[in-house]
């Protein structure tokens, strides 16, 4: 039954992929058919994912494919893959639902929608199979197809130069990452003597420490690239904004999670427990990504750029949780480790949902206004009330406001870090934990700033441009998708109990000596795993606040008497208010930029053309920029070095026959000398 459902789902996607080019010329129709089929397929996959989550032991499905007689391809279903399959399927269902509406404006622009639909389905299929793959070959194939199809999707609007550049950087970075992944897989497989997960999962006991360390490091580099961890992130803030919005929703919300899947597969099933610095490394990488990601997010003008950097930040936060879990596990605090594990898995799921929601919202905004520049938007809440409401829900999740889902994850991770620094008796780890805590707090505040900036400058006050003024609400399917996502955000926020227990039982399977603390009765539905006494019942907290707010609203007139409200324009020192007086998003974050100028390294150029010196200037040009430290400090020099070296080597091909003959002679002489 499970297999049938899964195959049906995957089959639907293949059909969807093929349907688009076959139906061909009738753009809209083929698009609708293709996306509809992929929606059905994703629902089937979601159903099977939920079943897989319930499996106690891995379930292996053999596929009728083989490679060079070494291995038969197989799918490996266990709770870990089931969990990720579920996350991906949720994202896919939402985005597919959403996509009914979004791409019609492309068809108006004369773009080839069947090309898009084909790649879209392939992309989904590849993501599913990445987490289901049961051996190295299938994993790498699907991993690369995933990159390749998303690369081509990023290039959908390829007329823009920056899009091509983004696509190129994306595909190269992810491919280089794949090299590291492959090497780590190969090293592991060599030790295991086989390429199947069954072989690899048996090797962990007799892996020597040095090899395990190398494999771990390679895996972190490889998967870290895909996950967008700083300093391997440079592709992410470029590629995600450049892609069509439903694709960026999938890439940001879901695709980066497959990297975590890969890493977890190593950490949970392949590698031994490992020294504590594994967790420490992840903590540091996570802290760095969270910090820099949120900082750059704050300063973004581009709506999708902001969301992309926020993805970097959230991946960082997830890594913080993972790092904490690993360290705690190393020191055999199994219960605390499981709490930390639940924390990052929970946050991972949350991020998938709210980031998908936010990107979908951004897509609606962009399709309504045709601009991504937040400084040109404003006042959309009145023009697009539903989008505005759902987007607010997403933003609130993003900035981790209780009682929404973002807070549950962040609270648990903070908790995990507290536990880490209190429980473990090592100065270094305590310091590391504290550092992570303060970084997380700073990140929380910065993200709040970014959230206010994003929501404020897009939805509130007066529209700053003609496009924003003329914006209209988008189509129904988009509302349904966003509404559904917002609903999931709320549900995950107020009823975390059952879900976190599920995650706990997932972890129990891989860390057998740990147990999820038992919960009692009804409370377990809405509490998060209880440890050390701190509890948090988001449902009741939410109800409390709502009740107080409603009581206040109803009681105030009752106590103080009815008052009236008069509408008038905003006071702007006596002038009629218009959009030029508003704070733009850029202006809004200026103080942050000044406060953290040592990190941003801002530069500004002001040039003036004067009418009469020195007082009356006619034109003032103002340009400011921040210096991307990692790109300038790491990637540019590396690139330069590589190109310089290449140029040097290229001189070898002089064009002279004599020279070439000399190469042959020299080679021969050297070889003859070595034969001796």
């Amino acid at each position, binding site marked *: 039954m499970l297999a049938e459902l899964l195959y049906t789902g995957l089959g639907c996607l293949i059909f969807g992929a093929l349907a688009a080019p076959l139906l061909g010329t009738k753009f809209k129709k083929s698009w609708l058919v293709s996306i509809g089929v992929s929606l059905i397929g994703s629902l089937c996959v979601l159903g099977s994912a939920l079943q897989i989550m319930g499996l106690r032991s891995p379930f292996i499905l053999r596929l009728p494919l083989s490679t060079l007689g070494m291995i038969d391809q197989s799918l490996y279903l266990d709770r870990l893959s089931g969990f990720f399959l579920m996350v991906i399927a949720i994202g896919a269902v939402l985005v597919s639902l959403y996509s009914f509406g979004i791409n019609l404006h492309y068809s108006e622009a004369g773009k080839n929608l069947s090309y898009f639909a084909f790649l879209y389905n392939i992309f989904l299929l590849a993501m599913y199979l990445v987490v289901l793959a049961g051996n190295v070959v299938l994993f790498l194939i699907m991993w690369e197809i995933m990159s390749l199809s998303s690369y081509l999707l990023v290039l959908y609007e390829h007329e823009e130069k920056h899009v091509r550049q983004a696509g190129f950087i994306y595909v190269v970075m992810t491919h280089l990452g794949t090299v590291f992944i492959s090497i780590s897989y190969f090293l592991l497989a060599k030790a295991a003597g086989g390429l199947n997960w069954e072989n690899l999962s048996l090797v962990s006991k007799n892996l020597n420490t040095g090899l395990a360390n190398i494999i771990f490091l390679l895996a972190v580099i490889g998967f870290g690239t895909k996950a967008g961890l700083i300093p391997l992130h440079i592709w992410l803030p470029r590629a995600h904004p450049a892609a069509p919005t439903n694709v960026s929703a999938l890439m940001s919300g879901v695709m980066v999670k497959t990297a975590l899947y890969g890493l977890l597969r190593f950490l949970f099933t392949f590698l031994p427990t490992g020294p504590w610095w594994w967790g420490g490394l992840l903590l540091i990488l996570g802290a760095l990504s969270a910090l820099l990601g949120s900082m750059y997010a704050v300063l973004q003008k581009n709506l999708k750029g902001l969301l992309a950097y926020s993805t970097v930040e959230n991946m960082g936060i997830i890594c913080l949780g993972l790092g904490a879990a690993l360290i705690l596990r190393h020191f055999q605090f199994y219960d605390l480790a499981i709490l930390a594990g639940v924390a990052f898995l929970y946050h991972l799921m949350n991020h998938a949902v709210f980031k998908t929601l936010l990107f979908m919202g951004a897509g609606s905004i962009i399709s309504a206004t045709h601009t991504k520049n937040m400084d040109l938007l404003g006042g959309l809440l009145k023009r697009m009330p539903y989008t505005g409401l759902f987007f607010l829900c997403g933003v609130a999740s993003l900035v981790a406001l209780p009682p929404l889902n973002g807070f549950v994850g962040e609270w648990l991770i903070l908790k995990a870090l507290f536990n880490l620094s209190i429980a473990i008796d090592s*100065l270094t780890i305590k310091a590391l934990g504290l550092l992570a805590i303060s970084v997380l707090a700073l990140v929380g505040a910065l993200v709040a700033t970014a959230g206010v900036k994003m929501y404020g400058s897009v*939805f509130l006050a007066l529209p700053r441009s003609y496009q924003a003024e003329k914006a209209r609400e988008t189509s129904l399917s988009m509302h349904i998708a966003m509404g559904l996502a917002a609903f999931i955000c709320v549900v995950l926020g107020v009823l975390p109990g059952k879900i976190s227990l599920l995650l706990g039982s997932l972890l129990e399977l891989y860390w057998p000596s740990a147990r999820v603390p038992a919960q009692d009765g009804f409370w377990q539905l809405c509490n998060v795993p209880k440890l050390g006494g701190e509890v948090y019942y988001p449902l009741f907290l939410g109800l409390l606040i709502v009740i107080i707010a409603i009581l206040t609203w109803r009681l105030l007139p009752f106590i103080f008497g009815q*008052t009236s409200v008069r*509408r008038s324009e905003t006071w702007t020192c006596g002038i009629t208010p218009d959009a030029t007086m*508003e704070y733009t998003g850029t202006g809004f974050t200026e103080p942050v930029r000044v406060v953290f100028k040592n990190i941003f390294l801002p530069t500004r150029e002001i040039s003036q053309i004067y009418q009469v010196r020195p007082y009356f200037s006619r034109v003032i040009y103002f340009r400011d920029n921040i210096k991307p430290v990692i790109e300038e400090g790491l990637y540019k020099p590396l690139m330069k070095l590589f190109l310089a070296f290449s140029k040097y080597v290229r001189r070898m091909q002089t064009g002279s026959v004599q020279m070439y003959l000399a190469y042959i002679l020299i080679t021969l002489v050297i070889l003859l000398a070595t034969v001796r």
Partner: protein
Amino acid sequence: MNILYMILQGLFLLFLAPLIAGVVKKTKALLQNRRGPHLFQVYRDIYKYMKKDAVMSEQTSWIFVFTPYLVFASILGAGLMLPVFHPVSPWPFSSDLIVFIYLLTMARFFMALAALDTGSAFGGMGASREMAVSSVIEPALVVTIAGLAFKAHTTDLSKMVSSFMVNPNGIFTPNLLLLLVAFYIILIAESGRIPVDNPDTHLELTMIHEGMLLEYSGKYLGLMVWASYLKQLLLYSIVASVFLPWGITSDPSLIGGIYNLFFYLVKVVFIGVLVAVTETAFVKIRLFQIPELLFSSLVLSFLSILMEITVGGR
């Protein structure tokens, strides 16, 4: 019973908050050789706001109307997490400090949104500064909490208080004193006091918090102002019950409650006076020096934790 307790504490805090604000104002005036407004003037102000008709900007959306209620509710909700009459807070489901902080963050988030919603430059300015300052407050605050958690092995307020009240003189360890200083700096910043913000001015160069409220009037302003006094009181209360754990008994009877209440009032008023003194003694600092002030708080907390780890706080 619990619900009654909650309602009682909620109302109590609501009515105490303006008084403490009055105390601060009065003390400050006295220190500056002014007579100052009446101790209950703040009540009158709030009453007046509530009675008045409101003017609402045409440019705003529903966020603007929604915000005062939400801000009020979330801060009052946070207030229910504090142990005031009793070392255990009335809200049975969570008195976690982190949740507490995030409730305050929620209030701030919506306040900033509402400020931007008006489309006025002042609102934007206030919100922008508020968010920038908060981004430096937050780490300092959380690390301070971490310092407390190191001591009490929990981040739960009720448990923290329960563990500190056993030995109130335990406060006289260097690391807790350092934490207290750190927290005091944060308290000043969070409640918008000199030297970080000046609550009495509407000068655009200096204002942070007031800038955000500029477009509010009538009952909406009343709610916002009340909420901000409440928030100030909540912060004082944390100091009162966590850092100054004298005069707390876990006796659940009425007598015990009154005993606690008495000492609570004494401590809170004392802190109010202290804040007034601080405000008088210092001048407001430039916006971009605030991070340095808060950074010092962060360092103090770190130092305290370091001491806790290495020498066990002796």
